């Protein structure tokens, strides 16, 4: 059984038509801003300074407060994604999507020793309080799941929170999809980012989609599609450590890695997800229930307290008449159900 992520299949065709109608063309143009925000741990710990991508508010004033991973970008197979970025941070930033091809223009600087060194993988948005905006584009999008992240000083800017998910197309067998983005926060590196040093990286908070489960409380809920409907699980690791997402329930069918389809799918209840990796899996819940999804590397702590961390509840809704199914609407790069 060969499986492809192409959106040219029967249902993918319908999806493509829908996307064409909704976006008036196979392109997705969004405006983002790189901003400083805070993330408040669920255990009542002090708010942590973060950098993140948000929908561009048009200027660097009146920014929202709380940090989350950047908004999900839903690209169209063979279409174009262009992101116009405003920079509200104190240093230059840029945007890259590992796995999607585009022309990169690395930026260099001359260090104290007179050596020319690379600072960024591609052209940057200067740190000018949001005055300049710069556009990044990717053509002929390949179906799959990708991370978008800062391409400038990534050892600092990515752990600071400058990352998000890009989805392109959807497997023809899936009725819906969900992003599960794994990452970590080491508060010690967030106090004064300019002086941050990743060599002592020891995260205290382990997140899925920007949320860390609070020990002793019900875990964060992720919409898990509908009973008897196949769901495409999109696993991404924006952190620096390896994680092993594990589902307590039916097996997953792993279909793609880094946006490349496997020649044959793999039946597993868990996924090896190293840093920077994306995995696509199909999952068909057979009962209306909540299924625990957690990191079997046991990053299931919240500031050292066990029972939290990388743990969500994948809530499967009841079977639903297909005729009432409302496809998600793309609105500024965010999926509004």
């Amino acid at each position: 059984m060969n499986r492809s992520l192409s959106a040219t299949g029967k249902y993918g065709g319908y999806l493509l038509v829908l996307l064409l109608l909704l976006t008036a063309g196979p392109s997705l143009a969004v405006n983002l801003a790189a901003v400083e925000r805070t993330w408040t741990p669920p255990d009542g710990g002090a708010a942590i300074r973060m950098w993140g991508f948000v929908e561009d508010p048009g200027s660097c004033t009146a920014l929202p407060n709380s940090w989350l991973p950047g908004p999900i970008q839903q690209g169209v197979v063979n279409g174009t994604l262009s992101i116009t970025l405003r920079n509200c941070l104190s240093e230059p930033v840029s945007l890259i999507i590992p796995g999607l091809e585009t022309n990169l223009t690395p930026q260099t600087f001359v260090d104290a020793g007179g050596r020319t060194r690379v600072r960024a993988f591609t052209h940057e948005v200067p740190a000018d309080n949001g005055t300049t905006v710069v556009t990044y584009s990717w053509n002929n999008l390949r179906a799959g799941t990708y991370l978008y992240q800062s391409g400038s000083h990534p050892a600092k800017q990515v752990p600071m929170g400058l990352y998000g998910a890009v989805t392109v197309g959807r497997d023809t067998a899936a009725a819906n999809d969900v992003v599960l983005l794994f990452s970590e926060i080491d508060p010690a590196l967030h106090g004064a980012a300019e002086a941050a040093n990743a060599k002592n990286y020891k995260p205290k908070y382990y997140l899925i989609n920007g949320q860390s489960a609070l020990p002793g409380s019900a875990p964060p809920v992720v919409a898990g599609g509908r009973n008897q409907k196949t769901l495409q699980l999109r696993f991404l690791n924006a952190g620096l450590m390896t994680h092993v997402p594990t589902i307590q329930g039916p097996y997953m069918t792993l279909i793609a890695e880094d946006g490349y389809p496997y020649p044959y799918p793999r039946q597993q209840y868990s996924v090896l997800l190293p840093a920077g990796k994306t995995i696509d899996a199909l999952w068909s819940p057979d009962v209306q229930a909540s299924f625990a999804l957690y990191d079997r590397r046991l990053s299931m702590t919240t500031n050292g307290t066990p029972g939290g961390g990388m743990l969500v509840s994948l809530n499967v809704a009841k079977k639903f008449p297909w005729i009432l199914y409302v496809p998600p609407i793309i609105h500024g790069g965010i999926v509004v159900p």
Partner: protein
Amino acid sequence: MTTRFNLTMQLSMAIVLALLFQVSPLQARIDGITGTNFTLSVKTGRVFTPDGGSILLWGYADGAGPAQYPGPTLIVNEGDTITITLNNALTVAGANPAPNVSILFPGQRAEASTTDPGVPGILTSEAVPGGSVTYTFIADHPGTYLYYSGTDPALQVEMGLMGAIIVRPSSGAGFAYNHPDTAFDREYLFLLSEMDPRIHEAIEFDGPQSTAVGPYLANPFPVVWFINGRNAPDTLDIPNLPVLPNQPYNSAPMMHPGERVLLRVIGGGRDLHPFHHHGNHSRIIARDGRLLASSPGAGPDLSHEVFTIKSVPGETVDAIFEWTGKGLGWDIYGTPADGPQFVHTCVDGNGDDFDDTTHEYCPDHDKPIPVVLPDNLDLAFGGFYSGSPFLGTLGSLPPGEGGLNPHGGFAYMWHSHTEKELTNFDIFPGGLMTMLIIVPQGASIP
């Protein structure tokens, strides 16, 4: 790419062997408990490490028995309804009560029974201190699985609450799965794990409410590594050793040339342990209890060879290992030039390049070992050196040397390829390591 085993060849070899040597085709079964109804109890115990360490254990016990690290290996049959009652007999230091405990069964659709439901937990139903919970599941797929605590797993799995499950296929005990290409002659379990003793010490001193344990749990730094709950060299000792009351399982793989050995490799801890087996490559046939098959019923046609098994936390791997000495380029049974006792034949009646009984690789027959053998005066000795480089031969040794290798077998180190894990608290050698001993045909294997 499709690769298939030559089953006919393997079966014919096995039949010839059985006739000539009266060798039972199934030996060296994995230690464990069998049945459909199990009673496990969570208790404390001690894990002893070869550096002299003694680490507090929270372990699953078989009923009234002692806590075990790992928990009892549950060996069940495909299709059976399995019932597991878990008693919480855990005791802890400090003023706070013992925690709830539980079991997760990845890959199984386990449910708590209506008559003994326990209390709801975040990941599964739990047993309160002094209480119990009963789980049931149908072992509807053969394969290698594991179980572990679903209550604060970051702490409780570290403390020792994990174990293996083997579901034997309806095809019979000589098969890993319901396909002839999964047949094996022997099988061994390699349940890999690690411990950070700081966590165990904090729990031992202050109980679960220890304030010291948090930073260790957030960023563990293990310093001891285990196969089947033991560190090398204890891995090689006999099972059920009285001085290791909470570590009943060993890891001492042995085989004859030409046999198919099934390796059941489980990531029981929280770290990846690349499991490197010297001697030959192995062929991965399944992961997470599912054959690497291109379609249902195709058998392990997507199997592939590796020399390091990627063992992922919470995942399982089944691999077939074979060894004949093929490719060494010299005669492992010696040549006439080495002495009259080494004169032997290599009879390849079926044209597979191997002797039909010893599995000697005939193209290398009578090829000399390509080194000048050193004099005993130039050697340092270990207990496993037989005194001879030739399989099944015992050479002369100084008084008091040798003795651990009475069949003149070959020893291959099997170990974590994360080399720092070959230590016991910074003392080399030790840790996640054992030795495969290959003994000649006819030598008994326990």
